[in-house]
């Protein structure tokens, strides 16, 4: 039932350029057919999802959102809250991808509706492994709402 030929659209909200680069490299290495879009904070993420402004007028609806927690302007917690309160967006799964190891952040994320909490590894090999595992679950295993 999955549409294998269409690229899997991921929105990555990440303020750290080096980390965003690592995610991109890891997805390339995984050979998963992924269309990765990157925004730098929570406010941009919401603009992208709501297709606000000229820049995001043609933005695709992502199949999955990877969300950093600590970002300027609008952080991951606030962004996650807004997504899950938005009738048009709440069925998009959001996975937290962060350096925070704080238990309070883990609990808060799941309470707000996160569909996973992944702590960023330090080295590129581990990064590739986690991206593989993420892809195995969200792209190869689970069924997601079809794009309308």
């Amino acid at each position, binding site marked *: 039932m999955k549409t294998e030929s269409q690229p899997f659209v991921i929105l990555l909200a990440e303020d750290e350029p080096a980390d965003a680069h690592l995610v991109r490299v890891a997805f390339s290495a995984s050979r998963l057919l992924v269309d990765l879009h990157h925004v730098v904070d929570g406010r941009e993420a919401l603009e992208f999802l709501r297709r606000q402004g000229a820049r995001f007028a043609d933005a695709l609806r992502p199949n999955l959102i990877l969300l950093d927690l600590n970002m300027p302007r609008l952080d991951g917690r606030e962004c996650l809250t807004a997504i899950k309160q938005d009738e048009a967006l709440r069925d998009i799964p959001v996975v937290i991808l962060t350096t925070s190891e704080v238990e309070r952040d883990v609990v808060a994320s799941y309470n707000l509706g996160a569909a996973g*909490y992944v702590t960023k590894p330090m080295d590129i090999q581990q990064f590739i492994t*986690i991206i593989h595992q993420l892809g195995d679950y969200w792209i190869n295993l689970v069924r997601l709402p079809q794009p309308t």
Partner: protein
Amino acid sequence: MKAPRIPRVLLVEDEPGDTRLMQLAMKNSGFQLELHCVGDGHEAIEYLTRLGQMSQNTAHPDLILLDLKMPGQSGLETLRAIKQMDNLRVIPVVVVTTSGLEADVVAAYRLGAAGYVAKPADLNEFMEAMRLLGTYWFRLVRLPDRTE
């Protein structure tokens, strides 16, 4: 740091055959689990709330695997009930079902499911599906600590 612990999983499934198959699949993939099985949604809520009342610290499951087609309270109603309870909402719920209806997929994510797995009929495919599911939830993501 992830504390090493045996994940506790609540399986809500009315087919005893499927329950046994799940146990086998998890064991085959090398996941050590404490698997608790209940036969329908009412039992699931009973199990979850009794645990909550008896002691704050003896632990809820780390993960709930939920069938949709069950007698009595449906899987979707059970999911809604879990996500409406303040002390249960934090537990990720993955739908594992034979239903391939798009309406069920969308409804499950809207209600807060952290994944929707269509049960493969083929045994090997089922084993592989459970391996990917286990890898994501028991190896990759960080789950809330059971005792805080």
